[in-house]
């Protein structure tokens, strides 16, 4: 007969928590991990301290001219002095307050839209009145505001105008194109497919060249089409095709039963789409739509090639100033920072949206 004996209690394993255990598990688990960790730390050590020295510790912040720079690192005085150029381009200095009002009104509008407006009509009114006010304030020519021609617009202002006008107008057009592509009517379907695939198949830059060289030939002789307007037309043409593809993804995810249910309720095509299919499809497509908006926001920098003065082109323009020669590095780093902040915020926001809309399927 076996004799069972109670074994002596063992002490609890001592190293299962705390920073050392964490490092052993996550950084030095295997010999391969040790090598990788060491290599990466050496790499980071090689990259980060010199960059911080350049950007912060040895950089110059105080002063008004290039000669005031004391450090051996970056000269941020240049960014400070040229900040108006980076934000407003060649917008006349005494009129800049109008742009600032537009920026301020944006937040007021968002607050009204989210918290104060209750009905659909109120929301639609706010949604329509803001662009109108923004246009009147920025362009001028009405209510005693001096008219500012579009070639004076520039910098971040121009980038934001192109991006937001492009996206807002392209979304309805893109939805219509996506519906066209899913349509049962052969002519409408094929026209949509040809348009979407054509736009997706050619580089944006060739479309912009088309806009700046060919578009004027399409109008009656003598009609001068504004350079910015030409770029906007092209950008809207491109964006609507890309948005159509994102919306199509959403439309394809809607089960057939939804269409049949709408049909059996006796809804016509447009009622079926607007009240049953699109609300569900757009919800699915929303993260993709934000992703595409980020892509298109980045692509607005291409308008620089056809001679518009967007944020990116300001680096070249301001560092060609004879008082500030050789400041390109600072300019590029600053502009990179601005683009990155905007795009990264948008991508994080799309993740939040994805999470929020995922819940009802879990």
């Amino acid at each position, binding site marked *: 007969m076996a004799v069972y004996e109670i074994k002596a209690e063992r002490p609890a394993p001592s190293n299962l928590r705390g920073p050392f255990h964490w490092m052993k598990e996550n950084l030095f688990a295997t010999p391969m991990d040790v090598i990788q960790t060491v290599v*990466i730390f050496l790499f980071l050590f090689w990259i980060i301290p010199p960059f911080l020295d350049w950007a912060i510790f040895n950089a110059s912040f105080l002063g008004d001219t290039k000669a005031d720079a004391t450090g051996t690192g970056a000269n941020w005085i240049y960014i400070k002095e040229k900040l108006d150029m980076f934000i407003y381009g060649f917008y006349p200095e005494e009129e800049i307050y109008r742009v600032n009002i537009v920026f301020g009104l944006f937040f007021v509008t968002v607050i009204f839209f989210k918290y104060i407006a209750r009905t659909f009509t109120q929301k639609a009114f706010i949604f329509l009145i803001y662009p109108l006010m923004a246009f009147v304030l920025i362009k001028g020519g009405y209510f005693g505001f001096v008219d500012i021609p579009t070639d004076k617009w520039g910098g971040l202002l121009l980038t934001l105008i192109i991006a937001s006008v492009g996206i807002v107008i392209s979304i309805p057009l893109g939805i219509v194109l996506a519906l066209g592509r899913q349509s049962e*009517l052969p002519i409408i379907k094929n026209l949509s497919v040809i348009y979407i695939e054509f736009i997706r*198949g050619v580089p944006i830059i060739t479309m912009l060249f088309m806009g700046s060289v060919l578009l004027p030939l399409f109008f009656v002789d003598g009609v001068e089409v504004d350079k910015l307007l030409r770029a906007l037309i092209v950008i809207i043409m491109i964006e609507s095709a890309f948005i159509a593809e994102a919306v199509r993804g959403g439309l394809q995810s809607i089960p057939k039963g939804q269409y049949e249910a709408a049909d059996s309720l006796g809804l016509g095509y447009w009622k079926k789409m607007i009240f049953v299919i699109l609300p569900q499809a757009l919800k699915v497509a929303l993260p993709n739509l934000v992703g595409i908006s980020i892509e298109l926001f*980045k692509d607005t920098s291409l308008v620089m090639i056809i001679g518009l003065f967007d944020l990116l082109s300001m680096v070249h323009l301001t560092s060609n100033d004879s008082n500030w020669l050789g400041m390109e590095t600072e300019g590029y780093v600053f502009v990179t920072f601005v683009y990155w902040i905007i795009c990264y915020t948008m991508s994080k926001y799309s993740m939040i949206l994805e999470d929020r809309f995922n819940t009802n399927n879990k």
Partner: protein
Amino acid sequence: MAIFYNKLFRDILSQLIIVVLLVLFLWYIITNLLYNIDHRGITTGFDFFNHVAGFGISETPIAYNDTKSTYFDAFLVGLINTLIVSGVGIIFASILGLLVGVARLSKNYIVSKVALAYIEFFRNIPLLLQILFWYNVVLATLPSPRQSLAFAASTFLNNRGLYIPKPLLQDSFNIVAIAIVLAFLIAIYFIRWANKRFEDTGKETTLWPWLIIIIIGLPLVVFNIVDTPVIIDNPALTGFNFSGGMRFSPEFLALAFALSIYTASLIAEAVRSGIEAVTKGQKEAAASLGLNGYQSLKLVVLPQAIRISIPPILGQYLNLIKNSSLATAIGYPEIVTVFSGTVLNQTGQAIEIITVTMAVYLTISLSVSLLLNIINKKLEIKER
């Protein structure tokens, strides 16, 4: 009117309206176009292709003469440069993207976080900005040829570009080439033999050490037997600049670098999401069948991950080819710079030139889509 409630009638009517509107629109544009062409005295037609171009191109992979070559030759030079920079970009973006994508899933905390930082940093910055940064900031501040940075094996980097040794293939290299082909044929034969043996008897053959010996060893032996199959042409400093060797211009380097680094961040995401999409249950099922880590990766995880990753990766390749057109901002002579830029300025035939450029890109896009469809068919889950 009852007929308005007839579905067929309404379908035909709505399409008819669209067609009529489209025709009216096109008619308006084309009449204006024809009027403008006539009024401004713009020449039309594709005759200009045969005219002498008369401008120089800095990088000419095929024979091109400043004074004799035609616009068509210039077009070809541009097209080939587009293909070269895209090919180089695709190769490096794939390698880097795969590396970063796998690193992103590493259990090592710091490896995974550095990969994440790489992805989030580069994909949230406009590509044009990255190209200009490499060109105007990094490459422009490199030292002059006399102070060039030297690397191993006669490789020099300076503000005129990157110089590397150039292998000049001699006639006797043909024998080596035959040996390479032969080695591959033998390898394929062995793989077939091993597969057949596995299917017939169920016995596995450890083949890969032999394959490596054949594919690398055979050409290497032949290479050493044959009388000087390759002469190396090393770049050397003569006066103020380098001569000999192979030169990559700063424009090419900036473009290839930016395209690879940017696209790699997007490919890494595709690789990661492909591997993550293979559910845990699949890996557990593989483990419960007794497959070890390598077998589970090779037989269960990768076949499914590849099926999910290939379409987005091919899409990124296509984007890379299209994005190579941004070269026009720094003047690398690819098709948009040479053809839609210089040739358009010289001839003024915007309609023809932009149409041809778009047609070239459309052909490339459609070929890639075709390839994608074929691959999708091959990778499709075969349900029985």
